[in-house]
C-alpha cells in the first residue's frame, strides 16, 4: 500500500486528500498534520448549532464540514492524523463496523504503548489510557468507491480554544465541557511530559499499521489527486456545503469521549422551567447543575439535590429524588419528583 506522508500541510489539504482518493478509486495511508488550526464538524452536524461562528471569525479560524461522522473539534498541528483509504471490496474493509474499527485501532493503541503510554482500544472506536482517558479521536465514512478511517495521535491539545469555539447555551455549560475535556481527554505531552519527535511518531505508527495493511511504500500523490482536491475545494468550501445541514434545535449535547457527555436539558414543569446541565460518564451522573425559574424552598435544597445526584447512576435518579422529597421538607410548587426526573433525561 502507498503511504502519502504529507508532513505539515495546509489544513484544507489535510482534509481534502482523503476525500479525493476514494472518489478516484484509490487506496492509501495518508499521514498529515495541519499547518494551521481550524474547526471541523461532522458530516451530519448543523454548524450553526455546534460552532460559535463569531468566535471562529474573531480567532480567524476556518470552519470545515467533513464527510466523516462524529462531532465538532478544534484541530491544529498538535495532532498527527492517519487516514486509511480502502476500496469497499478490499478484504480489510469487509466485516462489521466493530471489526473494522478494532482492526485498525489496535495497531494505534500498540503505537501508544510503544511510545510509553499504557493505552488500549475500547469499542466502539476510542483509544484510552489505563486511567480511562481518551487519547485518540476516530471516525469513518463510506466516500465514493471507498471506506475511510480517519484518526489521530493526540500529541498536544488546546483545550481552551476547543471550548471557546463550541456553541454553548451559557458559560456554565462551557465550564463543564472544559472540565470534562481536561479530565477525560489526554495527550502524549500530558502522559509523557514530553513530545517525541515526529519521525518517532510516524515510524512507530507505520510499523504497527504495516502489520495490518501489509508492506507500506512511500509515494507522491499523482496529479489526478490534486485535480480532484482542487475540484473538492470549490464544492466543500462553499457556504451551501458548510451550512448544508439543518437540524431542529434540540437539547445541547457535547460528546467528550465514547462514554462521556455534557448535556443541557430544559424541561417545562407547571411550576417553571428547569435547566439541567449534567456530565454523564458510563451511565453515571458525574455532576449536575440545576437552575430555572421554579421555586424550591429551603434555599439549600437545590444544592443538596445536586450533591445527592452527583456520582449516582442515571437510572437511580428517580429513587434519589424520591428519597430527597421524603427526607427533607421541601416546597416546590408545581414541580414534582417526576418533573426532576424528566429534566434529567438523557437527550
Amino acid at each position, binding site marked *: 500500500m502507498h503511504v502519502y506522508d504529507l508532513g505539515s500541510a495546509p489544513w484544507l489539504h489535510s482534509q481534502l486528500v482523503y476525500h479525493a482518493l476514494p472518489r478516484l478509486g484509490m487506496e492509501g495511508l495518508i499521514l498529515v498534520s495541519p499547518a494551521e488550526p481550524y474547526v471541523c464538524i461532522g*458530516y451530519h452536524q448543523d454548524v450553526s448549532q455546534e460552532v460559535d461562528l463569531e468566535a471562529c471569525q474573531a480567532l480567524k479560524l476556518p470552519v470545515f464540514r467533513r464527510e466523516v*461522522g462524529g462531532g465538532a473539534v478544534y484541530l491544529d498541528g498538535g495532532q498527527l492524523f492517519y487516514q486509511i483509504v480502502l476500496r469497499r471490496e478490499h478484504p480489510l474493509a469487509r*466485516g462489521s*463496523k466493530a471489526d473494522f474499527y478494532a482492526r485498525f485501532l489496535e495497531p494505534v493503541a500498540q503505537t501508544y504503548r510503544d511510545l510509553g503510554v499504557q493505552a488500549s482500544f475500547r469499542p*466502539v472506536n476510542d483509544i484510552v489510557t489505563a486511567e480511562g482517558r481518551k487519547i485518540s479521536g*476516530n*471516525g469513518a465514512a463510506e466516500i465514493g468507491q471507498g471506506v475511510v478511517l480517519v484518526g489521530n495521535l493526540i500529541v498536544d491539545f488546546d483545550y481552551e480554544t476547543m471550548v471557546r469555539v463550541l456553541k454553548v447555551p451559557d458559560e456554565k455549560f462551557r465550564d463543564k465541557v472544559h472540565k470534562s475535556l481536561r479530565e477525560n481527554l489526554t495527550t502524549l505531552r500530558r502522559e509523557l511530559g514530553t513530545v517525541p519527535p515526529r519521525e518517532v511518531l510516524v515510524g512507530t505508527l507505520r510499523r504497527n499499521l504495516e502489520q495490518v495493511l501489509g508492506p507500506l511504500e512511500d509515494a507522491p500523490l499523482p496529479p489526478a489527486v490534486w485535480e480532484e482536491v482542487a475540484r473538492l475545494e470549490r464544492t466543500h468550501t462553499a457556504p451551501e456545503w458548510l451550512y448544508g445541514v439543518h437540524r431542529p434545535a434540540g437539547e445541547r449535547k457535547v460528546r467528550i469521549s465514547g462514554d462521556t457527555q455534557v448535556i443541557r436539558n430544559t424541561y417545562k414543569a407547571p411550576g417553571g422551567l428547569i435547566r439541567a446541565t449534567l456530565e454523564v460518564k458510563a451511565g453515571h451522573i458525574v455532576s449536575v447543575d440545576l437552575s430555572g425559574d421554579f421555586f424550591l424552598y429551603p434555599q439549600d435544597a437545590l444544592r443538596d439535590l445536586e450533591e445527592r445526584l452527583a456520582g449516582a447512576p442515571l437510572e437511580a435518579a428517580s429513587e434519589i429524588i424520591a428519597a430527597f422529597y421524603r427526607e427533607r421538607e421541601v416546597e416546590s410548587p408545581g414541580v414534582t419528583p417526576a418533573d426532576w426526573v424528566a429534566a434529567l433525561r438523557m437527550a
Partner: protein
Amino acid sequence: MKIGKYEFPDDLLYDKEHNWARVEGNRVTQGMTALGQALAGEIVYAEVPRVGRTVEQGQPFMSLESGKWVGRIKAVVSGKIVEANGDLEWESTLINDSPYERGWFAVIEMSNPGELEALFKPSDPAYQAFVQEEAAKYGK
C-alpha cells in the same frame, strides 16, 4: 416471515443492501430491514433526503450515522422523491425501533417500474440465503 431471528414482512420487497420497498401503485416507500438496523447499531443521525430529488436504483441518496461511521443508503428504485420522513431528524432511532413502520426513509415515484424485478420477495431462496449469510458473517 421470519428469516433466522429477523422479521421480513411478506408484503414488502427487498434488495441486498438491507433495504425494503413497499409498492403502492407507482410509488415505493423505502426503509431499512430489521437486520440492516441491527448491523448498523444505534443510529444517531439520519440525513433526510430532499423532496423533489431524483434518485437512481443502486446509487446513494442519503446517509446514516452510527458509531461515528457515515454509511450511504442506496435507492431501491429509480425515480423522484415525493415524500421524506422528517421525523428521522428528531428521532433517528425510529429506524432501530420501528424499521418497517415509523422508521421509513422516503417515498419514491418510480420512473421505471421494471426495476422492481430486481428486488426479492422474502420467500425467495436467494434472498433467504443472503440474509442468513449476512447474519452469520456479522454475528447478528
